[in-house]
């Protein structure tokens, strides 16, 4: 138990140092712009199908599930607004972030882990290239930027899924549907939800990089790095989400 606690504190300390290094190096030239763009492409663009499909299903299912309850109160006309609100505020950010934790965090963890194990990171170091800057800074920046965009994409597709969900049982015109959605949304709904997605993105990248970069020697540690990256990133997402709710509550 004591050893377990000690290792947790140890880890927390190391993660903090690792993160501090990010802020120290992110503003220092030279900037690895090409690698950053490449990472945005692999992290953002390549996740579009997965995020799109889950977003669509979220919207569809949410609509179909909420419909009977609302119908009982004769409040079916609230359906588009309600679905959009729950999607944008909570469901799309959290589900998308969890999917990204599974896909991106583990991918980064495995990639950097295997680079570490096969001494590729050491090879960069001895050729006087800063591997932290080239590998870690670019990836963290890319996830911080791409995850929010993916969430917005999921929001959009989810709302579209909701439209299809509604039309299974009734016939609502697309324009009317969207005007109802827009009418129900406030800036104050969107802002906190968007801000937290940047934090999701940051930690998804950071944890994947940390786990990969600090992988021990030996091939089995690559799998371990990928696996523990997913676990830690998923947990952090829920913690951030909880904090975000508390903080928004304070201001409302």
């Amino acid at each position, binding site marked *: 138990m004591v050893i377990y606690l000690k290792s947790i504190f140890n880890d927390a300390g190391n993660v903090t140092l690792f993160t501090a290094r990010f802020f120290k190096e992110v503003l220092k030239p030279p900037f690895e712009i090409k690698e950053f763009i490449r990472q945005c492409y692999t992290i953002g663009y390549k996740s579009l199908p997965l995020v799109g499909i889950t977003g669509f299903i979220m919207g569809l299912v949410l609509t179909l599930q909420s419909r009977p309850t609302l119908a009982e109160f004769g409040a079916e006309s609230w359906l588009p607004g309600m679905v959009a609100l729950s999607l944008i505020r909570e469901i799309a950010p959290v589900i998308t972030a969890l999917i990204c934790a599974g896909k991106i965090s583990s991918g980064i963890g495995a990639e950097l882990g295997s*680079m570490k194990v*096969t001494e590729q990171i050491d090879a960069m*170091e001895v*050729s*006087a*290239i800063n591997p932290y800057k080239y590998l870690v800074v670019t990836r963290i920046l890319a996830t911080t930027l791409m995850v929010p965009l993916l969430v917005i994409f999921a929001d959009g597709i989810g709302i579209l899924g909701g439209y299809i969900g509604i039309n299974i049982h009734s016939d609502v015109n697309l324009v009317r549907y969207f005007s109802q959605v827009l009418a129900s949304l406030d800036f104050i709904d969107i802002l906190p939800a968007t801000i937290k997605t940047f934090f999701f993105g940051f930690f998804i990248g950071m944890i994947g990089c940390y786990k990969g970069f600090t992988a021990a020697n030996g091939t089995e540690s690559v799998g371990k790095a990928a696996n523990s990256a997913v676990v830690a990133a998923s947990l952090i997402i829920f913690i951030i989400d909880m904090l975000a709710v508390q903080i928004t509550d304070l201001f409302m």
Partner: protein
Amino acid sequence: MIPEEINTVEQLTDKKENTVISIGNLHKSFGKNNDVLKGVELTVKKGENLVVLGKSGSGKSVLIKCLVRLVEADQGEIKVFDTDITTLDNNALNAVRLRIGFLFQNAALYDSMTVRQNLEFPLKRHSKELNPTEVEEAIIEALDSVGLADAIDKMPSELSGGMRKRIGLARTLILKPEIILYDEPTTGLDTITSREISELILAIQKKNKTTSIIITHDMACAKLTGDRLVILKEGLIVAEGTYEELEKSGDEWVRSFFN
């Protein structure tokens, strides 16, 4: 009397200038019970090929990793080009690292890049004044020197073990290092390829006047490339000499390396 004194001073400075690497009382341990290096003393002269022998796990890789500070020494002095690298800050350290080439035991090619990109990667970052044609020329030249010019657009996963080693060597050569540290350059290769690589090491020494440390288990390679051999055992250098001297050593354990 006086001329003689001058002579000695000259000899002294001469000796100092000719020493490129000097390691004194180097200690390194991992954890509490794993003392790997326990006071290694070693000097390498300019233009010399030094072969390091030793059983698997005796700390040979750790020793050369200390030289570029991939592994931080616990104690001791490591002088490369007359600067003690153990106390350098990052920028100064990188300046020294640029003059040292390191061939990793498993080549350590960048998996996600083609052979061309592998070679380009260090070159573009450190020789910004080169234009694209010059970069291309340098890449071709380095690949030519290891005899693999036609592998330029392959991915590392498409290469055999021997090819990977040679590409790794090309990537090391492209920055024109003054010191090259070879970690088992011929291990796991057939005798013919091993011999080719050994000859390549010799050719590089002749052509670029490089100083090298070569870690190997391959006695043919040691015989061919080594100007001087040392043996690492239990964290200390226990024997030193030319191939012929050590082969006829009085110590049976030392002789056992040679058959």
